[in-house]
Structures are given as C-alpha cells and as structure tokens.
C-alpha cells in the first residue's frame, strides 16, 4: 500500500529497509561461534577434552566455514586482521586465531602434559580469554552497528554471552553425560542444570529486553520487533526462540531427571531456538528512513 506501507521492500519508498547483507551464512557462522566457544569454555573448566575438541572444531569449521562462505572475497579474508584497533570483526578474527592455536595447544597439553607448567597456564589462559572474546564479540559487532536499532541497543553482547554459556552448558551436559566428571558427580549435573535454567531465564529477559529497547528506540526498531512478534517472522520467532528455545526448555530442565535423552532433547530445543534467534534477528534488522514525514504525522 502506497498510503501506509512502512517496509520499503526495495522500492523507492521512504520506509524501513531490511538489511540483506548478513544472511544465512553469517547466522550459521554466528551460531557455531557461540555454540563452539561456549562448549569449549565450559569444557575447559572440567578439563573435558572431547568437549574442547568439539568446541574447537565447531569454531574452526562451523564458524570460520560460515564466514568463508559468506565473504565476497574469501581468499583475502586474512586482510580482516588489519583493524583490530577499531573493528570488532578484526578483533573477532584475531580471537579466533589465538583461540584455535591456544585451544589446540591446551588440548594437546591436557592430553599429554607436554607443556611446562608456566607455559601451560599461559596457554590455558590465552585459550580461555580468546574463547571468551568469541563468546561476546559477535554481539559487539552487531551492537556496534548503530544503523540497525534491533541490534544496537546494547543487549546484544549480553545475549551473545548468555547464549554462548547456555549452549556450552547444554552441550557439555550432552557430550559429557557418560563421562566421569558428570557420571560420577551427580551434584555437578544438578549444578549445570541449575546454571542452564538460570541462563535460560536470563536469556529470556535479555531477549525481551532487547526487543523492548528496540521497540522504543526508533521506527525501524519498532518495525523489526513487529516483524518478530506480530509480522511475517512471528510464526518462527515466538514459538522457536521464545517458546521452545527458552521457556519450554527451562521448564523441561527444571523437571528433568538426570537422563541423557532429556539432556539431548533440551539441548536440541534450545539450539533450535538459538539458531532461529540468529537467523531472525538478522532478517528482521531494519534501517531507519533517512528522512520521514509520515512518521511524524501518524504518531
């Protein structure tokens, strides 16, 4: 409708334009980044080698692979290291490199004890710090983009961290279920379950707060939130991200017996919700019109 349509959809109308630059490849990379780093992060605390290896692999192949597929000029990807001082993408790439090297060394060291103690601690610390950067920088890269109100409210790095930790806890519960550090210590499982529930609730509040902030930040923010809660994306966002990914999985976790199938099911639901979050928050990201009069008249 010419009279009141607010989404520009590529036509020469003043309205909210949806970003198309970051799509499925980027969402997938972000997904694997925060799943892999989260898993590694939790695993390193438990010296859980399989978790660390899988975490590294998810970051190396999933995240980096997604980025390579996304890039217009992947062979020049190394150039992205150039602006660590200003660019979160640069910082992220640096963190990935440090993480892959330090993480791998740490895993090798954990398995063989090959490194001297001091170096070992240094490597472990480097792996943990770079892993932590990966767990949050994607959020900063998004919120750094003041162009898109849905992303820039400041909640995005918190959402990243929350989701990464949650992913890490749940994946640890799944991958490590039969492992001694869990099998032999039921209180650890309980603790992780409580952690997971807390993170789910925290994540729920973070996501709602993110939407709340965007809703009142600008016209584009409101349109983005409308798209997610009422518009074309609502049929995915509400049931998957809010419903299964956070609410249902939290309730299940509260009620869950210490059974592998339960952990697997909950992790599956949460990761589905999280992937949907990554995809839909990209798709619903909208630019404000540079100049709009109708907006003023209507509201």
């Amino acid at each position, binding site marked *: 409708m*010419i*009279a009141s349509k607010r989404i*520009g959809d590529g036509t*020469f*109308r*003043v*309205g909210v*334009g949806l*970003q198309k*630059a*970051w799509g499925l490849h*980027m969402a997938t990379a972000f997904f694997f980044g925060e799943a892999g780093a989260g898993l590694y992060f939790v695993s390193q605390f438990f010296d859980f080698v399989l978790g660390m290896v899988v975490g590294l692999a998810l970051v190396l192949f999933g995240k980096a692979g997604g*980025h390579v597929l*996304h*890039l*217009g*000029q*992947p062979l*020049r*990807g190394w*150039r*992205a*290291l*150039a*602006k660590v001082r*200003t*660019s*979160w*993408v*640069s910082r992220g*790439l640096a963190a990935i490199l440090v993480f892959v090297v330090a993480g791998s060394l740490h895993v090798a060291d954990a398995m063989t004890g090959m490194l001297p103690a001091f170096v070992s601690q240094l490597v472990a610390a480097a792996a943990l710090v770079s892993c932590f950067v990966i767990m949050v920088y994607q959020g900063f*890269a*998004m919120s*750094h*983009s*003041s*162009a*898109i109100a849905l*992303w820039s409210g400041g909640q995005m790095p918190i959402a990243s961290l929350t989701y990464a930790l949650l992913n890490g806890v749940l994946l640890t519960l799944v991958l490590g279920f039969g492992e001694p550090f869990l099998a032999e210590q039921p209180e650890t499982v309980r603790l992780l379950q409580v952690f997971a529930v807390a993170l789910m609730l925290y994540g729920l509040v973070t996501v709602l707060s993110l939407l709340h902030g965007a809703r009142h930040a600008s016209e584009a923010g409101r349109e983005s939130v409308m798209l997610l809660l009422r518009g074309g994306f609502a049929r995915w966002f509400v049931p998957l991200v809010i419903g299964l990914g956070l609410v249902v999985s939290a309730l299940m976790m509260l009620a869950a017996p210490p059974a592998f199938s339960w952990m697997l099911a909950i992790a599956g639901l949460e990761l589905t919700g999280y992937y949907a979050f990554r995809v839909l928050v990209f798709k619903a*990201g909208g*630019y*404000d*019109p*540079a*100049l*709009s*009069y*109708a907006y003023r*008249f209507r509201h």
Partner: protein
Amino acid sequence: MATWGMVFDLRRCIGCNACAVACKQENSLPDGVFFTKTLSEEVGEFPDVTRTYVPTICNHCEDAPCERVCPTGATYTRADGIVMVDREKCIGCGTCIVACPYDQRTRLEPEMLDEGLFGGGRLTPFEEQGIGRFTVGTVVKCTFCHERVDAGLQPACVSTCPTEARIFGDLDDPTSRPRRLIQERRGRQPLAEKNTNPRVFYID
C-alpha cells in the same frame, strides 16, 4: 583542502531520479545497483495529502561507521572528506553495509555483473568499457564522483538534476552555496541522532 558536502533542497526535488540514471551512466552501475536514489513518501490523508521526495546518497560522514567497522581498512576517508572503498582490500564481509545507517552500500554479487543490463549475459560495448572498475564480492557506493570533483566538475547527479535540488560544494568555505543554504534554511543532517555527522544536509 576543501571538505566536500551536498545539500538536498527538498522543495526543489521532483523525485524524477534523473540523478539515479546519471549516476548509472557515470559509474556503469549494474542493474538494481544505485549510488543515489530518490524515494517518495505519501503524507496525510485525502484530501489533505501530499508526497515528499527524499534524495538519498552516501553521506560521506565525518564519523563514518562504515569506516570504523571495516576490518581491512578498505573503507577510508580522503583528506577532502570523501569516503572511499578500496576494492583491492575489500573482502566483502558486509559489516559496513549493516553499519551504514543510510543503507547506501551494495555488495556486488556475481549475477549483478554477469547478467548484463539487458539480461542474458550479453554485455553492450558501454558495459564492457565500464565493467572493469568492479570486483565481484566487494562493496561499492557513491564516491561523490571523486574524479569529476578532482577535475573541478560537479558530481554527475548534481550536474543533471533538472531542478537544481542538489547543491555540492566546500563545507569549509563559509561563502560556498551549500554552506549558505545550510545556514539560511537550517540544513539538517539525516538521522543526526546516529552521531555520524553526515556531510549531506537536507533543507525544506
């Protein structure tokens, strides 16, 4: 050294998009790619209704988010304030695209360059002479027609605008036309709240 900027006179603009086509001519842009375009917006309800025309272009912001977020340094600002993209450095990550509040950047996808303006992959001699300036997978945007500006000419969109709704000049020079217009008619920057300090101003 001048600092180049542009003023859009919204009272003059008739939304004809001669600017957009002149830009396509000057810059050999592929189908669907625009460095500048003029949008329209219906305002009000019948019979108390009008339509505004809003020209848009890269604002060559003083605090350019695109430059800030670029991981490779491909986006840079010339001494005269023109924000450029070095296609040799750009990796096509698109971070600048999502960082630009004005939605003024486009990544060149293979089909944009391969398809040709008439479709079917047949390139006209016009396209053949112009296509070499583009690298697939890199990000492009308005350069204020930097080569024309360097040669003392106006950007193509400015020189063709039938109603002279685009006024280009040195924002450092208090006697320049854009500076005078900004002062006299209270020029305002698009999405000033984004703190990008655009070098493009709107007057109405």
